[in-house]
């Protein structure tokens, strides 16, 4: 069930009506739990049971951890939980990848051992809810939060349908208190939720899915396209993945708002970042902050020497890349971003004391150039992220670097130009016009904009609904 489907609309309408019609908090939590289970089971009911089983295990382990005073027992329980969560993730997501890689490695040294691929179905959203469960267990272990005693509340934290499939990755310390709090109807929240949802719908249907028309054919067979078509396809993919993922996040945030919950912001105009570190503060914020708090800092963060910091960055980003998908191209994408971050740190250190250079970089032109450079680096990274093999990725880059003739863009460029212009206008409004000022716009005008956005999303919707890109992670 996709957020932008009619089925979800009817499902949400029913849940929303029942939710606000029921006056009891516990019953509302129960309703959301049932709805979330149904939402997931609409993909696969057995895998829905698997999540419930893994959540129950974490619930019990956390309670055991809290009751225990012996540090070794607490550590043991944490290890059991990490082993169970990461074990499930590895089995479902990475087992075949590792087997295939081992087979290829053995083949290189002359040994031919055939591993039969496992017949497993990847549970949708497993990477997201595994990270949520880990953050809860680690926080309980560190005694930052108490273990949740109510099973229903804990299950809702993991299973809450708006964030279940593709985030944002919620923190237990932010979300569990919200479940306890009684909810009251608020028009302001409804307005905010509707706004977010519409924004997400437009990003997904009117932007991301339309950009796929440039991207898919070129990435399927890059050898027949000329360099300019490949450059446009790469730019289109940068726009597509932003529209797709931030669109999903916006719809999740909006849906949660309408039910009285607040999810963390996941995107903050990432392509306006003027360096790669800034980009990661704006892109998939819930994942980058998770990686920072539960991987980079425990590894030592930036407290050690320059070399140690670089090592920590590379490890964090490599694992971040692997988190996205079971393929070496994702790993390479993570390594590439790790190197970008290391180089950025080196450049930042190099800048210190060079006043003229710093002044230039802080000037309007300097920031524009930095933003363009950052966008170019990110777009090169997206080529590896989108390509299914290294061969495809290198063909794409080679055909851009050494100009080749070939086919032009799969559809006229007007579409891309209009989309980029539309995005630029929206970013400009979001950047310069404070939200508070928007409240002063007369209600009929705001209402008209809402209705126009919805009609626009409907008119620009593709012929075949495309699945959200991050569902595969």
């Amino acid at each position, binding site marked *: 069930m996709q957020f932008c489907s009619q089925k979800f609309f009817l499902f949400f309408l029913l849940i929303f009506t029942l939710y606000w019609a029921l006056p009891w908090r516990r019953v509302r939590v129960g309703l959301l739990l049932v709805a979330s289970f149904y939402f997931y089971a609409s993909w696969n009911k057995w895998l829905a049971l698997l999540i419930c089983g893994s959540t129950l295990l974490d619930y019990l382990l956390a309670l055991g951890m809290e009751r225990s005073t012996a540090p070794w027992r607490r550590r043991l329980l944490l290890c059991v939980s990490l082993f169970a969560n990461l074990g499930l993730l590895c089995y479902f997501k990475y087992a075949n990848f590792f087997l295939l890689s081992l087979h290829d490695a053995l083949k290189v040294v002359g040994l031919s051992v055939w591993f039969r691929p496992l017949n497993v179905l990847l549970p949708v959203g497993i990477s997201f809810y595994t990270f949520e469960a880990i953050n809860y267990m680690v926080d309980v272990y560190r005694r930052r939060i108490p273990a949740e005693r109510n099973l229903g509340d804990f299950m809702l934290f993991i299973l809450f349908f708006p964030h279940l499939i593709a985030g944002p990755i919620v923190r237990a310390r932010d979300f569990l208190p919200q479940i306890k709090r009684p909810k009251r109807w608020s028009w302001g929240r409804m307005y905010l939720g509707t706004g977010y949802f519409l924004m997400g719908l437009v990003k997904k249907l009117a932007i991301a899915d339309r950009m796929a028309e440039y991207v898919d054919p070129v990435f399927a067979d890059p050898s027949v396209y000329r360099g300019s078509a490949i450059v446009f396809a790469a730019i289109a993919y940068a726009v597509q993945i932003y529209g797709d993922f931030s669109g999903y996040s916006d719809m999740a945030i909006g849906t949660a708002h309408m039910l009285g919950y607040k999810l963390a912001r996941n995107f903050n105009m990432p392509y306006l970042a003027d360096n790669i570190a800034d980009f990661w503060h704006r892109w998939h914020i819930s994942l980058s902050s998770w990686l920072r708090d539960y991987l980079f800092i425990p590894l030592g963060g930036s407290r050690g020497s320059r070399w140690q910091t670089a090592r920590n960055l590379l490890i964090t980003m490599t694992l971040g890349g692997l988190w996205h998908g079971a393929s070496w191209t994702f790993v390479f994408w993570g390594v590439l971003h790790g190197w970008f971050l290391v180089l950025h740190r080196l450049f930042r250190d190099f800048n210190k004391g060079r006043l003229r250079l710093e002044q230039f970089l802080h000037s309007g032109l300097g920031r524009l150039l930095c933003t363009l450079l950052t966008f170019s680096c990110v777009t090169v990274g997206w080529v590896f992220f989108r390509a299914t093999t290294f061969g495809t990725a290198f063909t794409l880059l080679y055909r851009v670097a050494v100009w080749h003739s070939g086919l032009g863009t799969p559809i006229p460029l007007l579409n891309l130009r209009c989309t980029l212009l539309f995005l630029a206008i929206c970013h400009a409004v979001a950047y310069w016009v404070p939200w508070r000022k928007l*409240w002063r716009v007369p209600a009929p005008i705001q209402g008209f904009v809402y209705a126009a956005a919805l009609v626009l999303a409907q008119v620009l919707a593709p012929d075949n609904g495309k699945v959200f890109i991050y569902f595969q992670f």
Partner: protein
Amino acid sequence: MCECDTTSRRRKKQRLAAHTRACLLWGLTFFAAAHIGMLIATQSFWPHLRDPEFGYKLSALRRQRAEDPDRPLLILLGSSRTGQGIRPGVLPELRTLDGRIPLVFNFSQVGSGPLAELVTLCRLLDAGIRPDWLAVEILPALLGRTVDAFGDVGTGISRLSWKDVILLSRYVRDPHTMRRRWYKDQLAPWYAQRFSVMNHYASNCVPWRLRLDHWKQLDRWGWSDIGQDNQPLVLNPTALEVTRTTYYVDLQTLHISSMQDHALHDLIALCRQENIPLLFYLMPEGTIFRGWYAPAVSTRINDYLTHLSRECNVPIVDLRTWMEDKYFGDSHHLYRQGATLFTRRFGPEVLACLVQGRLASLPFLMAPLSHPSTEPGPGPLTVLPKPSKRTKSAALSITGGAPPTMEKRD
């Protein structure tokens, strides 16, 4: 002071709540208004947004009629073969027996089989356009289809008006699903008509596979003006492959569909009821295309059409071998030059006989006519009395039995 602060905060909150509520309600109102407006527009005064091909051809026909309202009208119905293959603009002058020059208009629509042709004729009559003669193409490959350009419960549904749905309910295999899909489309007409809207106003933003704007290339007489006069006359392998995948299986296994048979009989009955002289014709095909007919299928089609012609006493002319292979791009659509040549022969040899009532002298008849006149002749077709003024189609009822070659496979 504290109490005053609380009151002011409460007031501010109330104001904000009222404002946000108003915003949402306005949004909902505008959204509903947009959809209701679109629904009314597509179902009444903007039919070209619902069914662009029909809408544009209707407008073109009305413009032509406005120039000389008393000119008799000959309408051609058919598929894209007729759409691209018959150029009324280059027709040698046709004259009726009393010396009048009829207006010939190509009202073909892409993918039209008998059912779609019946729907088109009913729509024309509803629009107040009653042709004086009708020439209808039969595309043999479509005679076996259980779906049609309109009858398809898939993409064609959004092109239908309510009257079309009532009419089609009598033919399609699953009228319940068709009606449900149609109602669903009416709930969100902007969504249902999105490709039509995009093709009209931003066709450059539409991927090639969704481009439906061939109606923009129509000439004044409804001919699809695709290609150029100096176009090289070579077979296009890609187009040929598309044709092969579209028709090959049909031509190997075809059985006459009861739905198409039913529609053909009703079309004939409607013409009799409206007193419109009618002829059917089979458009030219290339050697490759003709080679795809399995012998059994070929016999079945010929037997069926011969039987239909005899049974209903309507002329069916078979022009499949009229054109050389070089004039086809894909072995069944004529190039511009081919269309010109074909039209110049088709006019005097076929259409002239129709407008002059000399049906018996038509060439390539599949069966001789027993009553070679334009007057409605006796036959096994019965038309029930009309229940209402305009929905003539709903009043039709056929009692003619199925021809011997027809096998009901659906």
